[in-house]
């Protein structure tokens, strides 16, 4: 059975953060529920729908930006008390809007995530976790990396309180009191946690997680170890997950999984007999989905998915059929309530327009006076700059609450800007004289009307580092623009991992000198992505990284006065050496750099590259043949006379072409890395082999693994 959901927009509030909208429990089954939502203006609003009109129950005064909104109450009673986290304060409201709690936590940072269970309050700022019971401090934990979300397994079902932290370093940390019970690695940086079936399943231990690279999974958190149940890869390359909920929207008695993503996609997964999720429905909204919940809001008796978006729209995807869905030719009547709504809006607009005109004039007049100043109106930009593991490229997502007029992208490092299919903006590359102005890339994106979200794809080269800047100008008067800066790090294609293969041949780079732990940590932060800004606790720390493009690895262990970096890729070591010595010289620190090169590692790296290169070459060859084969097919009518290999190519033609298109310049990148490897190998020996590069490229053109290895050995 196909699931049909119709979209209905209810209301727009200010810009919203992740997990800031909830539905209050219904008085009886399938009765309409009220929606509570908190926005960046600090306003909490509770409203219900009456005859298609949003009717406010209460609305608080503006205040600090609301980061989270949760419902709570005495355990085993309806959870209808509203709790919000704003700044470092927690406030509680009854469902009528009466404030009954104001709790200043005295945290130095503002609260990022919150979970409430009975009288237990679980909070986290960027790195700090705190547990309060009846507003009294109970437990405390300092995490190694940023905490994105927090949840506690249901206390009704489990003997002990088990909070779980979703941390940026791809780890879920399961706590017991103030200590970590254990950690479990997840496939991407987790951004959201939720209890499976809203109650943690039968055991109460089933936990759903979503990651910023769009993966979704279920883990059973038992008292001793985690059990990974299932995982959904992000094959369609959709956005990161911001919110999940469990609700039976299909109506088959089993709760379905509702997912909201940061590219505006809403998905519904149902579970098959093997309890594995199957995609049932997806719909594209134009902006990030910040909260999602199943329930009933628009009309009694019709289930729906209620979502809130970044710019504050509360929208329902309802099972209620739209009555005007009829055959072509039938007249469509705009029903009365709609018309009322429209005319109300129109009159409101007229008034506003008049007022804006007045203010505009005043503003113009003020520009005549000499001592007045003109402040820049601030607007919020929601941005995300992440490395994609699949194609080793960065994606930059910019989202603004109003329509974007244009975006200027400037970079002082050579990078490639790739086209993203779903963008409708017109790109234009400007010429840049790089020497005088440090510009390697200047591009403008002129957006079509109503574009609030822009996605860019960027390909960086390891070893070339600098800054990428985006100047975002929205379509709003007075015209202003905001700059966002993003660092392209020297080892930009590396990703944090928690396990590496210790049997590989490794090259080692050792630093010794008069430097503090914080200093060496800052260098590592400078060189590698996904390392927390703050120096971790302890005297010595080890981080593991993986090159997303070549799968080579890097181990970095450092303490005060010493740093050891080990990698099976000689180029990685070479980049580190160059950057670190440059940084140290800049800060006038005397560094002793020594390295130990393992000749075998070069051959090992080449062997790692070999299957990728061979695959790409074969793919390129196949794609080249497709057109000719198709012509033969047209001419001859059938393909029986072809050898099976060619028939295979014809059958898979579409997939092959798709795949080829998906990874442009993949082969060139591989060639580039092999060339780097070649140059770096001999750089450590003290010889310059740049003159031999053309010869190497010749060998690559007629690629053969043994010939290549022989060339590396011989040169």
């Amino acid at each position, binding site marked *: 059975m196909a699931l049909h959901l119709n979209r*209905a927009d209810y209301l727009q509030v200010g810009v919203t953060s992740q997990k800031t909208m909830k539905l209050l429990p219904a008085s009886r089954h399938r009765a309409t529920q009220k929606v509570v939502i908190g926005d960046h203006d600090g306003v909490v609003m509770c409203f219900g729908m009456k005859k298609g009109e949003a009717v406010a129950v209460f609305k608080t005064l503006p205040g600090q930006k609301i980061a989270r909104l949760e419902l709570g109450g005495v355990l085993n009673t309806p959870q209808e008390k509203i709790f919000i986290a704003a700044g470092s304060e927690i406030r509680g409201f009854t469902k009528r809007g009466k404030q009954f709690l104001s709790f200043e936590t005295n945290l130095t940072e503002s609260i990022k995530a919150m979970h409430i269970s009975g009288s237990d309050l679980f909070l986290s700022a960027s790195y700090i976790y705190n547990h309060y019971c009846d507003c009294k401090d109970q437990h405390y934990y300092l995490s190694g990396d940023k905490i994105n979300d927090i949840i506690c397994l249901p206390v009704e079902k489990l003997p002990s309180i088990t909070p779980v932290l979703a941390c940026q370093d791809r780890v879920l940390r399961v706590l017991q009191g103030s200590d970590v019970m254990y950690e479990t690695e997840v496939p991407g940086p987790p951004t959201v946690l939720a209890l499976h079936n809203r109650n943690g399943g039968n055991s109460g231990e089933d936990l759903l997680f979503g990651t910023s690279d769009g993966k979704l999974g279920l883990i059973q958190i038992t008292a001793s170890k985690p059990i990974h149940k299932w995982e959904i890869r992000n094959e369609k390359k959709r956005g990161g997950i911001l919110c999940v909920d469990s609700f039976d929207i299909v109506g088959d008695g089993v709760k379905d999984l509702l997912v909201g993503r940061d590219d505006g996609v809403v998905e519904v997964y149902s579970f098959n007999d093997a309890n594995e999720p199957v995609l049932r429905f997806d719909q594209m909204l134009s902006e990030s989905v910040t909260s999602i919940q199943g329930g009933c809001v628009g009309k009694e008796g019709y289930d729906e998915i209620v979502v809130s978006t970044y710019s504050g729209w509360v929208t329902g995807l309802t099972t209620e059929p739209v009555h005007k869905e009829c055959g072509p030719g039938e007249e469509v009547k705009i029903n009365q309530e709609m018309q009322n709504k429209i005319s109300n809006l129109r009159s409101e607009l007229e008034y506003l327009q008049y007022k804006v005109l007045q203010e505009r004039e*005043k503003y113009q007049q003020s520009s005549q006076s000499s001592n007045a*100043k*003109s*402040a820049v*109106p601030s607007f919020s930009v929601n941005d995300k700059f992440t490395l994609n593991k699949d194609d080793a490229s960065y994606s930059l997502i910019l989202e603004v609450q109003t329509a974007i007029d244009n975006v200027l992208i400037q970079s002082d490092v050579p990078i490639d800007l790739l086209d993203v299919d779903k963008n409708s903006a017109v790109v234009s590359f400007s010429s*840049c004289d790089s020497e005088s102005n440090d510009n390697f890339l200047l591009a403008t994106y002129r957006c079509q009307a109503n574009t609030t979200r822009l996605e860019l794809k960027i390909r960086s080269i390891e070893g070339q580092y600098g800054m990428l800047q985006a100047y975002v100008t929205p379509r709003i008067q007075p015209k202003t623009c905001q700059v966002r800066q993003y660092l392209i790090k020297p080892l930009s294609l590396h990703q944090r991992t928690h396990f590496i293969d210790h049997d590989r041949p490794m090259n080692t780079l050792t630093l010794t000198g008069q430097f503090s732990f914080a200093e060496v940590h800052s260098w590592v932060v400078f060189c590698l992505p996904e390392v927390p800004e703050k120096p971790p606790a302890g005297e010595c720390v080890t981080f593991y990284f993986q090159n997303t493009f070549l799968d080579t690895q890097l181990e970095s262990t450092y303490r005060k006065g010493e740093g050891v970096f080990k990698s099976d890729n000689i180029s990685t070591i070479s980049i580190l050496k160059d950057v670190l010595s440059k940084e140290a010289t800049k800060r006038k620190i005397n560094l002793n750099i020594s390295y130990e090169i393992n000749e075998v590692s070069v051959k090992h790296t080449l062997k790692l590259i070999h299957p990728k290169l061979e695959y790409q070459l074969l793919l390129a060859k196949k794609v080249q043949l497709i057109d000719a084969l198709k012509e033969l097919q047209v*001419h001859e009518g059938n393909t029986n006379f072809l050898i099976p290999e060619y028939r295979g190519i014809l059958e898979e033609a579409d997939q092959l072409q798709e795949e080829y298109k998906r990874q442009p310049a993949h082969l060139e990148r591989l060639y580039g890395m092999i060339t780097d490897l070649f140059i770096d190998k001999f750089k450590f020996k003290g010889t310059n082999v740049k003159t031999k590069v053309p010869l190497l490229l010749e060998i690559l053109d007629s690629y053969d693994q043994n010939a290549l290895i022989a060339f590396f050995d011989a040169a």
Partner: protein
Amino acid sequence: MLLPVFTLKLRHKISPRMVAIGRYDGIHPCLAAATQAGKVFIHNPHTRSQHSSASRAFQSPLESDVSLLNINQAVSCLTAGVLNPELGYDALLVGTQTNLLAYDVYNNSDLFYREVADGTNAIVLGTLGDISSPLAIVGGNCALQGFDHEGNDLFWTVTGDNVHSLALCDFDGDGKKELLVGSEDFDIRVFKEDEIVAEMTETEIITSLCPMDSSRFGYALSNGTVGVYDKTARYWRIKSKNHAMSIHAFDLNSDGVCELITGWSNGKVDARHDRTGEVIFKDNFSCAVAGVLEGDYRMDGRTQLICCSVDGEIRGYLPGTAEMTGNLMDTSVEQDLIRELSQKKQNLLLELRNYEENAKAELSPLSEADGPRGAIPASTTLHTALSVSLGRETQPAHVELCISTSNGKKLCGAGPWGLLCHRGVVLELPWSLSPADTIIRAVLIFAEGIFLGESHVVHPSIHSLSGSVRIPVTPPKDVPVDLHLKTFVGYRSSTQFHVFEMTRQLPRFSMYALSSPDSASEPVSYVSFIIAERAQRVVIWLNQNFLLPEDTNIQNAPFQVCFTSLRNGGQLYIKIKLSGEITINTDDIDLAGDIIQSMAAFFAIEDLQVEADFPVYFEELRKVLVKVDEYHSVHQKLSAEMADNSNLIRSLLVRAEDARLMRDMKTMKNRYMELYDLNKDLLNGYKIRCNNHTELLGNLKAVNQAIQRAGRLRVGKPKNQVIAACRDAIRSNNINTLFRIMRVGTASS
């Protein structure tokens, strides 16, 4: 919502823009389209194909209702329609780079097969002006040719550059069709028979044109722009990052007015309102759209809109009935309306809040803390100035746009940099900027046709920020350009900036700098003509079209002004005598043409006879004409050789096969070796032929351009006379007459 009434999936690729519907037997509409490997397929769903394996057409092995037509050359354009009204059914016309074939599908025979030396980039079929019989008009390299049903060449003229699109449209509303020509030099020209009645300059190559109701027509450019013109005025245009593959006018919502239907390279099809460009319908294909057409493909008496994708998917849409007007799209109107209104409301509220906050902030004095947030004095204004810079050693000559804030310190005062340094003025160092000095963080210039893309960005490095920016601009063509500037103003530490938006116009001849006359360098080439205008009016024209220094003071007639081109340093003299005779000395024939056309437009001159002499250019042209002759003879020789060789191949093949049957393997092997060698020779010969052909095309283009240029030196009737006379001279191969015409405008002395 509008759904397709039929969907077909043919297993043949369709080449973009090369698809047409015709009733080749007079009754059944069939779809003909160019496909891979120099073939044309004809889809005939109505009658089972009776084609036997005759000369050209044979049945497709993939599908029973598709027959294939072998052209054996890459097809470059295709259309169908009535060429011979007596025949009572449509002909199929297929153009390649060298030939035009008119084909009678029903009888499986050729109507004519003509060599077209200028190539066929675009084709249109219909009646033009007063010419009674329908013409197949093909556009090639700078030339337009019209053929009747016997292949007679009834129409011939030249245009400024390679033709990319053609359409017939009643442009001036006289009931007769004019020819619209879109060419590589970004111009849309309107030909009333062989007279150009209008010219519109666009910003990119015009890839498609289509007639709409009355004098309206749609156009598409290679940079993703589509739009609608009514006569010479543009109603609207939109630009997308995708390319418009095909455009067609069709009344999809049954309101009596055609909409512009566009098929895009990403597979989107949209219908836009002819007056506003508003989208009233859209649909998606899985790959690029190859063509948009109309026809009664189901033969039920109602015309459908038919869209084809490049991989052979065909969808037909019936126009929506009048009641569903404005509701062809999926989403419900009122929901969208509410959303739009709410968005507007939100924007207004935001703007209001901005003013409120501004008012609040105004009360506090400007302080250091405002830096990052970017509050600047309200009185800040931007100054822009355009000037001509003769260039320095490191930088070629250019037009300079200088933008400066009213309250930022400038790194350099007025005047070119070089001068300042020589005078020993100490440059202020950037870090001496006080926090109250506003800086320009970046400048975005959106302008069409003068940059690589549609925009140019100036983003000074963080160390050299200042209150003024100098931007070199070098427009490649002499056209007036609007520069839309967006300037980001703030402080050094700002993360938010004010955006100042303004528009400056770059005059048409901005790339020419006023210089002092120097009779020694005066170009020998000239044009001269007489106009009945006062000298003051000419001075006004000069001021509008050139970047003259502010202190230029031009006295009364007679006077002369001298300019130097910033592109190549060439000289330009404009002299006016008391009698109203104007002489323009320049070696650049295009520039002379541009100046005459610009003056004619400014003074509203309808007809202008001009005397011209360009000795250097004419000498080059003479050489080109000689070369054309040479290439023609080489071409003939090569063709003859090829024919010989093909005979040889036939006999060799027969002998080799004979040897095989006789089991004389040695002889067979030898024969096949010979065949192999011959084949190699043929391939080489082919390469030579190809090169020869490209050279020939290049030279023919130069000849056509020369005629066009000679025409552009005149206005109105004299212009058409020159073009017609030149053409006759070339036909009769009378080179001396040709030059005479180009000089004085007529053949007779």
